[in-house]
């Protein structure tokens, strides 16, 4: 049978191309454009090549922000993943309490980021905040506005409060899919609580846990609104993470060239790390299947 060649069919793809061009390709190319040009104002640009990239790669300001960012993501993953699993394991499996728990757990996830920030900003204030006042009354020297450690603690606890639910809910879904017979067999086999977790629950949760870790990593690595509302990146630069620094550079200082180069590298780093994560974890999965 002869195939009918009809090149007009290409026009059917056009709408998608237009949408993608305007929503992704053109904005990205604008950033690329800024990253490779310099200006002295007056909307006159001249070619700068890779100069901004070189400057950014060697910038200690960016290095520091990246270091803080990695530390932050590391800390919140180290807390939220085990805590989420622990909560999921201890949530009621059925009945009215299970529904209530699910609703309560979902609540923090529904609150807009800047509202979360505002809640904690007020909550932690030493003059009017419940947390700040209480700690002060207990004699704890807590002030997130001028103590870097307190600022970090506040931001970390806030993130744990906001996002542990996500990990817990995903794990809970994984746990619910385990047939009762597995637990019964474990009782027959006299397995310890730890063995039940290690050999039944954890393997069954692995798939959702991978997704949870990936989501939490990406989100925490891009975090902006909540710490910005609480600490504004301070005291000093103590909680200035990559996004906060980027916005400072682009909007505050109006250094469009370096900021554009910065954001391209930022994007590539997230892409790279997520890819590494995914590849490592799926290949682990495949090895186990062998």
């Amino acid at each position: 049978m002869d195939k009918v060649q009809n090149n007009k069919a290409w026009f059917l793809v056009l709408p998608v191309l237009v949408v993608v061009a305007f929503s992704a390709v053109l904005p990205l190319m604008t950033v690329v454009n800024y990253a490779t040009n310099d200006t002295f104002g007056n909307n006159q640009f001249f070619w700068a090549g890779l100069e901004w990239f070189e400057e950014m790669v060697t910038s200690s300001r960016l290095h520091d922000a990246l270091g803080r960012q990695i530390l932050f993501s590391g800390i919140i993953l180290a807390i939220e993943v085990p805590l989420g699993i622990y909560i999921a394991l201890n949530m009621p499996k059925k009945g009215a309490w299970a529904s209530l728990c699910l609703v309560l757990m979902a609540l923090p996830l529904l609150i807009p980021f800047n509202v979360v920030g505002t809640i904690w900003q007020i909550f932690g204030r030493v003059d009017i905040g419940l947390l700040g006042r209480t700690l002060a009354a207990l004699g704890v020297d807590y002030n997130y506005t001028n103590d870097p450690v307190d600022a970090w603690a506040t931001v970390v606890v806030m993130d744990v409060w906001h996002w542990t639910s996500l990990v817990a809910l995903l794990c809970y879904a994984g746990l619910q899919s385990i047939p009762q017979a597995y637990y019964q067999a474990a009782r027959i086999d006299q397995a310890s609580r730890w063995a039940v977790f290690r050999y039944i629950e954890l393997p069954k949760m692995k798939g959702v846990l991978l997704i949870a870790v990936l989501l939490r990593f990406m989100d925490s690595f891009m975090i902006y609104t909540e710490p910005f509302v609480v600490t504004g990146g301070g005291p000093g630069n103590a909680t200035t993470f990559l996004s906060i620094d980027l916005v400072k550079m682009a909007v505050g200082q109006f250094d469009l060239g370096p900021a554009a180069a910065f954001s391209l590298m930022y994007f590539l780093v997230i892409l790279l790390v997520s890819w590494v994560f995914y590849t490592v974890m799926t290949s682990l999965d495949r090895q186990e299947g062998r």
Partner: protein
Amino acid sequence: MARITLSNLAHSYLPNPASPADFALKQMDHVWQDGGAYALLGSSGCGKTTLLNIISGLVRPSQGRVLFGDRDVTDAETAARNIAQVFQFPVVYDTMTVRQNLAFPLRNRGKDAAYIKARVDQIAAMIGMEAILDRRAQGLTADAKQKISLGRGMVREDVNAILFDEPLTVIDPHMKWELRTQLKSLHREFGHTMIYVTHDQTEALTFADKVVVMSEGTVVQLGTPEELFETPAHTFVGYFIGSPGMNLLDASIAGTCARLAGAELALARDYGTPQGRTQIGIRPEYVTLTEGTGLPFALTRVEDVGRHRIVRGTVEGQPVNVVVPEGQALGAHLTHVSFAAERINVYADDWRIEGGAA
């Protein structure tokens, strides 16, 4: 190992059972002799699995006691009862190898490594898995996984009983027969008490010395396969066992005479005048087609099942099946059926009644 006694036992999954219908298991007293091979037979949902889970301690009965030997274990944990149980669907620990799976119950009980290795090798040989002992259990087929589950059930030597909950459902027919034979030889070798739940009568009758038939939460009969066939204690046993099941005909009984709608039938024994709904039961194997003696028979259908034929028809409007052995000719001249008098059982309200001398 121990005798297992169920005393005054009943179970309901509802917190406040009101009527007998709320009970998954109705009140029963039952003794499983030490070293017996029992089959627990019944249709789906009759309480077989509940009974098994009560014995293994996965379910706590709402009333009554469970005794192992003289020890009351009603409140004892599953682990403390030292019971093995194999479930209907394969349960394997995915991340472990086959060897680790088989060794798991022994490791948890702190047996020494040399013993575990010897025992695992022995079980692996029995279920035919020596070659893949060091493979991960995850990628295996369903029947391989179920064999691991069976192996895990049998790996401990000192168990009080091994309970099988329809373990061969997912296994293919050829392997089913082989595994059942192995279970049987294992039973002969080690003498564990084995309770085998199934709804397949062939499986029950080939595996067990004693068959327990359950219906709607009640044990209706405990007996040898032969007893179940010849003298079913309940009409349920009559039609559940046998293929086709027992013919049951409504009849009024007076002494040694059973009266069907328009015909009379002599009985071998004297049954007096039983009350309630009375029926006579006769196995299709004990019905013969005749040219004129016995009761008039209206034939509706003949099924050839290979070794014999099943002739289906009616006597006085009630269905009757006849098993006709190979080689016997069928024809229009066979208009009547005769029942072997000494094989007729009489039932009042579904329960068999014992007749006196005629």
